[in-house]
């Protein structure tokens, strides 16, 4: 049984081995590291998330000002 399994593995091409949904794969080990935010990627993520959520929060207040209902 083990030999048959090995033969089946050898018969598969790299494209077939990789042909899974990009969303189904397990995340990369590097994002499991507690010091993730000290890496270059982690710093970029931190900057983008702070900027993105910060901008959305700023917009929620600032962009409402011109239309704020007079009865509220």
């Amino acid at each position, binding site marked *: 049984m083990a030999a048959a399994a090995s033969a089946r593995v050898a018969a598969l091409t790299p494209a077939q081995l990789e042909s899974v949904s990009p969303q189904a794969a397990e*995340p990369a080990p590097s994002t499991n590291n507690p010091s993730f935010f000290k890496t270059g990627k982690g710093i970029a993520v931190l900057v983008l998330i702070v900027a993105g959520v910060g901008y959305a929060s700023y917009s*929620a207040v600032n962009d409402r000002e011109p239309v704020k209902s007079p009865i509220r």
Partner: protein
Amino acid sequence: MRRITTYLAAFVLALSAIPAAAQSLTGGIEGVVRDEQGGALPGVSLTLTGKRGSQTTLTDAVGSYRFAGIDPGTFSVTAELSGFRTKRQENVVVGIGRQVPINMVLGVAGVQEAIEVVGESPVVNPVSSSTDNSLSQDMLFNLPIRPSNAATDLLNYLPGIVDGAAYGADSDTANGLLLDGVDTRDPEGGSAWTFFNFNIVEEVQVSGLGAPAEFGAFQGAVVNTITKSGGNNYSGLFDVYYTKDSLQGNNISQEIIDGNPSLAEPATDRERMDLTAQLGGPIVKDKLFFFLSGERYHRDQDPTGPNTLRDEVSARINFKLNYQPTSNDNFMAMVQYDNYNIIGRCGVSAALCTFDLTNREDAPEWVWAMQWRHVFGSKTFAEVKYNGWTGFYDLNPEVPLPAVFDGSTGQPSQGWYYYADRNRNQVNASISHYAEGFGKHDLKFGVEIERSKVRSRYGLGDIYYYDYTAYYPSKQYLAYTYSYDLGGKNQRESAYAQDSWHVNDRLTINAGVRFDWVRGYPAYESANGSIGDSKVYDVKNWSPRLGFAYDVTGNGKTVLKGSYSQYYEGAFFLAYSPAVPGIADFVSYAYDPSGELCGPEGNCFTETDRSPNPLYNVDRDIKHPRVDEWTLGFERELVKDVRLAVTGIYRQDKGIQGSVTPDARWAPTTVTASDDGTDAALNGRQLSVYEWTNRSSSDQNYLLTNPDGFEYLNPAGSVLGTARAQRKYQALMFVLDKRFSNRWQGRISYVLSKNEGTVNNGGFDTYGSSTQFESASRALVNQFGPLEFSQNHELKVFLTYQIPKVDVGLNGYWRYLSGWPYTPYQRFGSGAINFPLSSGREVFLEPRGSRRAASRSTLDLRLEKIFRVGSSSDRISLYADLQNLFNADTITNVQNRYPSVSIAGFDQAVEFGGPTAVTPPRSWLVGARWSF
């Protein structure tokens, strides 16, 4: 032991014990572990590993195991037993409401290495009797579907649903819209209230055909949207897409302009940008996780018509925490804040709309959900949820001057305001239990308590008047005042019980019953005085659900299934709002231009008439709107990853509500259609209609009831005709699905359907008041035929392919839809048909749905260049969406009032059959995203 990883094309499933999970926001995994001789293996340690850690269980005496109450996601299952080779199954995808069967065969341990097996959940569900169509995350991520409102627009990509009308039910208002279990619909009438970021969607499950008893308060489809959440690994998405006017085409031909000059200038996006930033991950490994998302959506439009500014901004922030102190307890808390505002929303017809005639829209809201799930063991888990939302939606005039209509120029002013306040709270509790006895049972019992509140205010700001002095110097103005302050409280308690009874290896019976108690109360003190707390609406509904699934071939690849279900609509204020005080008197005025009647205050308006708004009575025996549904079909796995599903559907509406005038008496009369139209078959056509003979003595008694069977009487009391409030939907649905593998996925769906009756399905049509059954001329003349949202043919094709070596994604969505039915009607004057409201004098000149607009065919594409960074899930991509590739200029809606309709601001009228809406032109959107 060195592990060898192998990938097998399929794995063998036995069907000895695969009861279905109760349909909820969770799924499960279960199976049997055997040795190579087929003997059951008790005591095998099964470890389930997902993004939030691991949990372990043991097989019982017959080798069975279960993991219940699992959040949807991708997992691996590892089986270990001393003396046997360890086996692991990777990429097990658990979806909403799916119980995934994973059976394993363990070989005797030797010097060989352990083998890992890659497998996937089956494409066919052999135990569910419902027809479930889902939008996988692959589809959401890859396809050029970018709904402007994810809450409602995602539905339209699914078979049997077009423009929000699901399986013949009311467009938009009949669908349950759940976001992490929160019903986000407007409690006034069921339309979508909460919008949410398309990118926060983890999975969308859509059901409604054969839905189990735990789903209620809907009549179309129920959309179960699960939002993303954090895990042990950090995952994120940063996405931006953009378009501008130079990236948009123009598909308005001269022929269209000749038919309707107001279409000459279609709306264009000067700029549209959508920014999303998301991150999820651990706070405490294996215990506490977060998900955070921020979005800013901005659309700056030059709308059709004289107005050149419509600026729309929506900012949305989502935050979610998942806490699992033990493997048996799971807490979730979610909050969303979004603020939707518009400058330049037209308050009058687009053709007349200058910026001064627009409104500003202010609409912030909060949405929240809290949930505790406790797993008592492998057989039992309980869930308690509290969720709700609160918000308002205000429209204020840009220029708050008194509203005037200038009869000589046709130019109105604005001046009206509208304020809508809403809130909704709901508590759900349920317990799910697996039991054995006369087969295997997957039981679920639950209760729901809903409290929602509605307040709607409308006013004109001052006296609204029509200036006809250019035509009638001596008659001056027609002026009136009108406003309302209406409020209601909906209360609903529901309870349900359901059993997915696995009778034997092949047959599963899904049975359930649901009880709903719906009540409605006035909520606010009206301007006319206190209204107390008297209940105006009270119905109790029992709805059975029964279905079966039979595994024809015994290997889980071919399933015959069928169901019978009753679905009652939800608790909506509009079902009883005519019985609630709050509408001010309609007061008419005369204006004296000479000023002689002006008093010291300078008030030149003299009240000439005051009409109190009648309060409707509610029939003590009123039935709540309901749909009875039968389905029969089969599903088959044709080859690996490919599923064919064929379903026959029959749905019939019962308990359609409406309003009647019980004391009215009618007399037949004849009206003649206009001679001035362009249709020779309609010019001068004579119709038999009915005039209200005793209107002055009977127009204060209106009744909310079920009008089917209501008799219209002549003055002598003889029956002239009987109302029919009917609707039915028949369809044959084919769906061919290919799951993502070997770089591509696709779906082809074709629905052949017939949707006809006497009550339309445009939205809000099965409850509340309307003139359809108040006026005998409308109720008894040409009412039966195809409904507004009736598609004879519906074909949808999705295809996504990742080109190897260059790593480019090519994705497309094409749909072909039959044109909309429409019916010529004419509005006759009150001298011809004695009825106060003009809508009660609009008579169909031909049977309903006698004409049909042009069919629609549209193709959207996405090209995406992928750059892999690090692991396979870490990617940066650039993409471009091309919507309406062939720049189709299909006329999607036509003017159906005979002989024509004037467009204020234009000398030319739009003739019957002329265009009123066209497919949006070809446009490009470009975007970039980083996901990991």
